């Protein structure tokens, strides 16, 4: 058996810098890419539309790669504990939400890539690196995959709203340190005079 790691002077109530950085970077990239995707889909054909599609696809590939790094980091680094007072059902819901979010962070770019292939538009990363087309051109399949891509995106948006709502609920209603795990500057310092 490995000896217990030395107890750090500060209990691990907050994610590490890498985890926090990756979380906010991916969050920002997803929100931007989602917004661009929503906006570009109904545009009439124009050079700008073609540019936005390419940028959106490059962003998708980039997000996929960052999520891969994130997942690797997450599996190798134990996240901070949840508050002891949290009921078991809430822990389960939180766990399920995080698992689903990770699944969607992979599934969304993959379905985007597949729908592109099926529609006959290869993904060329930054206009330089062609990604293989996993599907041959098939307009009906392309339309179906577009619906799947859209559905998964709206599912993810709903989960992100729930994720955000839960974080705010923890911070403002439960008044615990769950949100502060990702935003260390919010951490409450348990000083005697604290009236919160």
């Amino acid at each position: 058996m490995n000896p217990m790691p030395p107890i750090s002077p500060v209990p691990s109530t907050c994610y590490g810098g890498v985890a926090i950085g990756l979380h906010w970077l991916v969050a920002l990239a997803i929100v931007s890419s989602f917004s661009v995707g929503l906006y570009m889909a109904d545009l009439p054909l124009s050079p700008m539309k073609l540019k936005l599609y390419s940028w959106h696809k490059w962003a998708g590939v980039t997000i996929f790669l960052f999520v891969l790094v994130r997942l690797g980091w997450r599996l190798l680094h134990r996240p901070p504990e949840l508050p002891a007072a949290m009921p078991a059902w809430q822990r389960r819901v939180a766990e399920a939400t995080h698992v689903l979010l990770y699944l969607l962070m992979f599934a969304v770019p993959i379905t985007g890539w597949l729908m592109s292939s099926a529609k006959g538009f290869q993904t060329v990363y930054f206009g330089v690196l062609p990604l293989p087309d996993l599907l041959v051109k098939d307009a009906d399949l392309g339309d179906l995959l577009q619906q799947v891509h859209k559905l998964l995106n709206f599912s993810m948006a709903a989960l992100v709203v729930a994720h955000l709502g839960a974080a705010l609920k923890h911070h403002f209603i439960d008044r615990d340190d769950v949100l502060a795990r990702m935003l260390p500057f919010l951490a409450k310092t348990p000083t005697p005079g604290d009236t919160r």
Partner: protein
Amino acid sequence: MKFSVKCLLLGALLTALPVAHAIEFNQVQTGKSALSFVSKQMNVPVEGQFKSFRCKLAFDPAKPAAATAELEIDLASIDAGSKDANDEVAGKAWFNTRAFPVAKFVVTSVKPLGGNRFEVAGKMTIKGKTQDLAAPVTLRQEGNSAIFEGSLVIKRADYAIGEGMWADFGTVANEVQVKYRLVATAAK
């Protein structure tokens, strides 16, 4: 004896005649032929094709310089890769198919390049603009058919294909690779 020699000569001449009279490929089998192209959008290659075209051809492999050919392409039959693109390229900025429904390539000279390769030069007219165009062609004979194949790069700006906001080559490249395959037989 003299008579049989004459007979032999005549016989030899008769059998030799069909060989001397070379074959002329002049019936283009459009069903087996294809006219496709690859455009580049944001450096992404996108395949397309013209589904309807006609070709008048008279090509004798023994006398290529005497060949004549005329190709007419129905521009509205384009498949540019997606429905959106098809609707777009029929418009005024692209092919303006209502005003210019047909593109035409009239061959003016055929130059043998050695082996089974030829340079087919002619006048290409698209959207009212005529340019000289030289097409490399490889000839292959399969049974009674001649297969003319090749590809070349045309610059869309030479024919004002993609004007206005599309004139910038940053999104849709100027160079378009055109691939052709014509299958022709010889009329009896």
